[in-house]
């Protein structure tokens, strides 16, 4: 059957069972939008800025295990999408981004709205394609989806010139695709797995450290089972929250710059460290020489060989998909020798000693709203069962520390790139994917204004998000660093002339509630989640302006050189 390029694209998306396309039209994608209009299987979500289209597709993908799809036009459409693509790339989120391009005869001639999209997206996509011939379109899209979700996932961009979307050719969608140059390793090498297990069983001070790879490979059940069988303490990174239930005794909280005392101490002082789908990021291990100064055996499971021994020398590498390798480890552990709790009793005693420091305790105030308190109340009111999208800054760290995640894919944030403005579009994508779920967006007055226009999209699609705006009238994380390390010179971190967020929410047709007193925090949240269940509510919490995120490891310092509270300053 002969179809146009635009029709082929739609058919391919249908074949891939795409439910939503997040996009914004323009000249180079007119044929694509025309084909989208003439079908009803795929819903198009019209955002208000292309950056948000990619973030929303990203939020959709993070909260499901599906590939998110965004559609943007050429030139500024693509450059606006770039931040979204880079954000997804840094956190290995599977996306297919379709961009329109000026017609092939005009490419290279500085045509209207022309930009070298494959050139500028090359370093921040897993792979990208420029489709010059409509005959290659279906196969290219098949490859794009395959690359996006297999191996270490990531965004793939397909640039489609306008004449290609108008040209016709015979359509058939390939059932399979194989690429001789791309063969990700899925199962781990048995010899390495046995060696890893022997090392873990012999350990006196074992520690498990897991990252986003556990979430991406849907390995939370296997991780939980294995960790309980082994009996070792475990920490989940910012990207790995929900990989292991936060309420469990073996869980030590998050590690790193704003990690818990017990997690960082255990990371530093263990004798065997099992890293799973994590990458020894600078925000996680602090100063690299300091980290290496305590000898330990490191086992590292990761699907991406380049992540292994990139920053920290690994003793026992296991290349493979985290879910499969954990399955292999469980099988070996169940078949062979069992761990002896007596082996690790002294270690656990030490860990409990660190935990007894209660590093996340903070002082409540009768008249100032503490941001930590808001997050704890959010957890209570949602019974720990919400999908929480976060922006970037202090509020992000408080949400990560105080909203205790029991399950994977409930915590959506930009960990790698640290992109302010992701929160609202992430929440949009998650709410569309889970219409019945409670979706909260924890944000700040700085971040929310970076994609505030999406309140309009939320109105159009009736998305009942609950925005918890922790408003301290500062770019708080910047202010915190300036207070601690730049002589309290608050350069550029104070924002004057903030909008009235309640009126702003109302202007977009939503509900706005301002909360000034600690006693009103819980009632306001309850009102939002019950009375206004089906509406978007923006809760403007006027929080303690001077509150900082603790614990903290200053950039460049060792993991255990922690500032636990303002008294340590």
């Amino acid at each position: 059957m002969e179809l146009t390029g635009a029709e082929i694209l739609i058919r391919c998306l249908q074949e891939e069972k795409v439910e939503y396309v997040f996009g914004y039209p323009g000249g180079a994608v007119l044929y694509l939008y025309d084909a989208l209009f003439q079908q009803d299987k795929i819903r198009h979500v019209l955002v208000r800025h292309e950056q948000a289209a990619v973030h929303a597709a990203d939020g959709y993908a993070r909260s499901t295990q599906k590939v998110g799809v965004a559609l943007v036009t050429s030139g500024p459409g693509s450059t606006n999408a770039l931040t979204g693509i880079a954000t997804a790339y840094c956190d290995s989120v599977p996306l297919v981004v379709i961009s329109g391009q000026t017609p092939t005869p005009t490419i290279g001639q500085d045509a209207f709205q022309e930009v070298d999209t494959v050139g500028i997206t090359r370093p921040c996509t897993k792979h990208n394609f420029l489709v010059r011939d409509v005959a290659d379109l279906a196969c290219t899209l098949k490859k794009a989806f395959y690359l996006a979700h297999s191996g270490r996932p990531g965004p793939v961009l397909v640039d489609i010139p306008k004449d290609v979307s108008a040209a016709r050719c015979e359509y058939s969608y390939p059932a399979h695709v194989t690429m001789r140059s791309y063969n990700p390793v899925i199962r781990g090498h048995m010899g390495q797995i046995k060696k890893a297990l022997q090392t873990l069983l012999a350990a006196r001070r074992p520690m498990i450290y897991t990252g986003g790879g556990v979430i991406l490979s849907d390995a939370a059940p296997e991780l939980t089972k294995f960790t309980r069988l082994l009996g070792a303490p475990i920490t989940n990174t910012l990207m790995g929250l929900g990989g292991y239930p936060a309420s469990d005794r073996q869980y030590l909280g998050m590690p790193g710059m704003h990690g818990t005392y017990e997690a960082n101490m255990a990371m530093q002082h263990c004798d065997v460290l099992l890293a799973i789908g994590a990458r020894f990021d600078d925000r996680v291990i602090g100063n690299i020489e300091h980290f290496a100064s305590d000898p330990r055996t490191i086992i590292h499971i990761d699907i991406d060989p380049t992540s292994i021994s990139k920053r920290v020398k690994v003793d026992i590498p296991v290349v493979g998909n985290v879910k499969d390798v954990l399955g292999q480890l469980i099988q070996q552990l169940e078949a062979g020798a069992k761990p002896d709790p007596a082996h690790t009793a002294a270690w656990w005693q030490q860990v409990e000693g660190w935990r007894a420091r209660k590093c996340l305790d903070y002082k409540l105030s009768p008249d100032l709203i503490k941001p930590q308190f808001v997050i704890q109340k959010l957890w209570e009111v949602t019974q720990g069962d919400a999908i929480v999208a976060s922006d970037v800054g202090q509020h992000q760290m408080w949400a990560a520390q105080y909203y205790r995640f029991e399950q994977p894919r409930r915590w959506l944030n930009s960990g790698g790139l640290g992109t302010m403005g992701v929160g609202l579009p992430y929440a949009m994508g998650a709410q569309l994917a889970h219409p019945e779920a409670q979706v909260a967006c924890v944000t700040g007055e700085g971040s929310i204004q970076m994609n505030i226009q999406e309140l309009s999209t939320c109105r159009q699609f009736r998305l009942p998000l609950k925005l918890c705006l922790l408003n301290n009238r500062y770019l708080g994380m910047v202010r915190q660093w300036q207070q601690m390390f730049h002589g309290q010179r608050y350069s550029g971190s104070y924002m004057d002339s903030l909008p009235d967020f309640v009126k702003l929410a109302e202007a977009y047709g939503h509900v706005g509630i301002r909360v000034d007193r600690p006693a009103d925090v819980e009632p306001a949240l309850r009102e939002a989640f019950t009375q206004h269940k089906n509406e978007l509510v923006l809760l403007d919490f006027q929080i303690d302006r001077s509150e900082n995120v603790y614990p903290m490891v200053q950039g460049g310092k060792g993991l255990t050189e922690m500032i636990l509270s303002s008294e340590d300053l």
Partner: protein
Amino acid sequence: MRHVISLLLENESGALSRVSGLFSARGYNIESLTVAPTEDASMSRMTLVTSGSDEIIEQITKQLNKLIDVVKVVDLSEAANIERELLLAKVRATGAAREEMKRMADIFRARILDVTDASYVIEVTGNQAKLDAFLAAIAPEQILETVRSGVCGIGRGDRILKV
């Protein structure tokens, strides 16, 4: 340490910039890079000369393998290999230097490809050290222009880089 890395890559537009972009983005050193199609028209073969610690070279080969367009990567320096580079040098060939240049070409087993009243174009092949030695042996003021191909490498004996 200096390493010669050979790779086969899909003959797609942009494949070369993926490799060069990787090196610039990650701050790896490229001493030379050559690329040309192979007997299989769907693939190109590239020879890269780089240097770095063992850890960096390990990362480079892993990062190259990770590129979707890269089919195979071999670090030729891990075993016996042959390196060759081509140099074309346009040199002054007047007066006494004319005979001297001819002699120099013979010593280095080079060939003279072009002759005018005033100059020769000399072709020299060999490893990098030989080409460096040839250039060092000529007085700088005699050299009008040079161009080098960059290193091509191949493993000795049974080591074969093929799909």
